[in-house]
């Protein structure tokens, strides 16, 4: 299971990086969203998969999966949500302001 998930992570990273390298702002943002998916899975995998029951005390199982990565992922999910939301709105504003979503046209400072 771990190996398969790890390979999945690899695929996700590949796709995400490919998207990050493109010119369109949307793709870049999508890429960053997929990157965060990948890393959440990675955190999960690193804690070990399916090594015990649901981390709820009181259910009838004696061993639990590693709860710490889950807590970390929760935090990470929220944070990446916040960042993605901000980035999205930024993209929207940028387009409204410049009429461009092509990053090649959005070079910003250059030789003035």
């Amino acid at each position, binding site marked *: 299971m771990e190996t398969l*998930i790890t390979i999945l992570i690899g*695929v996700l990273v590949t796709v995400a990086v490919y998207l990050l390298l493109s010119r369109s702002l949307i793709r870049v943002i999508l890429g960053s969203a997929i990157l965060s998916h990948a890393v959440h*899975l990675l955190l999960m995998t690193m804690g070990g998969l399916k090594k015990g029951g649901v981390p709820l005390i009181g259910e009838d199982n004696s061993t639990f*999966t590693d709860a710490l990565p889950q807590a970390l992922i929760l935090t990470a999910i929220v944070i990446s949500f916040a960042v*993605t*939301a901000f980035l999205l709105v930024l993209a929207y504003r940028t387009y409204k302001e410049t009429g461009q979503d092509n990053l090649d046209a959005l070079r910003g400072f250059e030789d003035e």
Partner: protein
Amino acid sequence: MFLSIAIFIPFLIAIFIPFIYKRVPNRNIGWFVLVVPVLLFLFLASHIPTVAEGKTTIHTFRWIESAGIHFTTYLDGLSLIFGLLISGVGSLVILYSIYYLSEREALGRFYVYLLLFMGAMLGVVFSDNMMVLYVFWELTSISSFLLIAFWYHRKKSRYGAQKSMLITVTGGIGMLAGFVMLQSLTGTFSVRETIQVIDQYTGEGLFIAAMSLVLLGAFTKSAQFPFHIWLPDAMEAPTPVSAYLHSATMVKAGIYLVARFTPIFGGEKIWFYAICCVGIFTLFLGSFNAVRQTDLKALLAYSTISQLGLIMSLIGLGSAATAQGMSTQSAIFVQATFAALFHLVNHSTFKGALFMVVGILDHELGTRDVRRLGGLMAFMPVTFTIALIGSFSMAGLPPFNGFLSKEMFFEAMLSLRGLDLFSLGAWGAIFPVIAWVASIFTFVYSMIIVFQTFFGEHHPERIERPAHEAKPGMLIAPSVLATFIIGIFFFPNLIGDYLLRPAVKGLYPTLSNVESMIPAITVWHGFNTALWMTIGVIILGVVLYWRLHSWKGIYTAAPMRLNLDTMYNGLLLKTEEGASSITRFYMTGYLRDYVVYIFTFFILIVGGVFFTNGSFSIDLSNDAPIAANEYIIIFVMMGASIAIIFAKSRKTAIILNGVLGYAIAILFVVFRAPDLALTQIVVETVTTALFLLCFYFLPEWKMEKLPKPTKLVNGLIAVSAGVIVTVIALAAQGNKLFESVSVYFENAYDLAGGKNIVNTILGDFRAFDTMLEVVVLFIAGIGVFTLIKLKAGKEERDVEDQ
């Protein structure tokens, strides 16, 4: 104690000058300032007797104790002689400047700079701690920078200031490195302490490095070849400044440094060679170039360079005394040092006087171009007299002090012949030859100053103001110096005994019988080689001066164009251009390029190290089993993710991303993470909604039409990044070194009263993370609000506060 305070007096007064200047906004402010150097001079002079007896005083203020940097002042013969020069010439220059500068100039600023310089210079010569010395050293560079650019609206002033600053500060920083190296060898920053222990370390590689760096500092400051190029440009400063900083004091700081460090480095061959060769070459180059100058000030600048080279080479010669130890053989070297110090004093007198003369000419006639001057003797008799005295002294003619030191210089150079030291061999004979040739040129330019300016025909139309004698006030200072020139010739042993001998002794603290090696200075010492050389100089010099127009052509010959100045300018220009093109090459402003850099770095460094250092090991034995439905989910995810790349519309892509998110939620279910699954589902939905909300108004995405190579590069980077992340993850799984700390959390109910372990971690064990996570969310929320509500378009788009 008083000495330490004395150094700070100029700084203190400098602080008050702007306030005083507000009250007394005219030249009378100069009189206030004048008090400072005069008092300092008197104070220092009061130490002459004690120092002559061989006593030294030392006093320490603690400054940065932890770093061993103390404000230690050390008064011995060597520092005293410099201190007297600084305060003495300083007094005269300030006196002179009171009349020289017009009231329209920013006098307040001028005197602040000047006092700053004076204090810094005193600090340099009296500091025992190398770091403190460096502090003051850089302060002199800065005040020199400010003074050169006193008329900062002139382009040439700024150019000269920048040049001098760059060169001297570069040297200074090198010197700092040298000092630090010395410190790491000996463990102390104190010069005196270093002298005592340095013998143990002379073999180290650092020692040589430190030496060259210290020399770099000295050479840049003292305008030695090839760093002399800043000095002529520094002549853009007001003439009193040139007289003070760029001939009498600051440029001698390098000489002081070399003298001060002779006991430390003196025993080394490289030290000896470097100083002697550079000095003698600078002597020649300076004098040779001085002849071609038409601007009197530039002429004096080159002459200063050449004289500095002379002193430098003498000091270098003197350093051999340390190598020779205590033997009587070293007497000639000690005498060379004596000559060097003697010439140092003499040079300050005659060069100071000459600068002031040029200043007077400039001030009264509006020009200092030799080609426009002539026949001024009748109009300006006093000025002429002073110029005559100064120039003849510089040319080394009796009865002026220059003659004495020049003779001693020749003798010292001659003694190099056949000397069996540092395997010098026959090469030693070259030194006196060069010295002699250089002296001829010296003679020639000295004559130019006197004869082309004061003799010949007077052309009133070529000068801007009718010729007349300067005001008496302006003549006081140069007259005093002229008096010294003659006075020293007749009573040389007065300063010889009271100043120079103690100074030489201060220079060689390790040699015991220094004073006995130095004979008294005599005006007449018989017809020896040195005298014949002088006579030769005069004869040949007169001839050359006579035939000046016929051989001047060699200056315009081709190789002369390839000089260091053009190299300096070209270097700056080229560096700037090169920098610009390099930076623009990689700072493209494209996000893609930056991402490429990051991932390339990641792949090269992380991937490279990973595959080479043997951490690549995979252990799959610990894997959990996979069920059929899980295969489906995972393959759906892979398919969906790859499909995103090829998605034709952005909505499809967004939905596919949503599919990924939901699938991950299912995976979380599979991995027994209910909270995560819930959160993931909700967050994914909200994110997707936001995507749709925001992208509604963005244009539909087009299929990327990238050139093939770019695509290939992108693909390559993407795949390698993916592979590296995967393999490291696999390796990490096979390499579990410790049990996780999370076992502890399984007692959540007993510890924190929660049955949901994950939420207990979030709410209690690691509540701080959660708290901050909420803050992050909050910032994002408010941030989105501001981003949308605060638009630049609403206000006027001025450049206010870019």
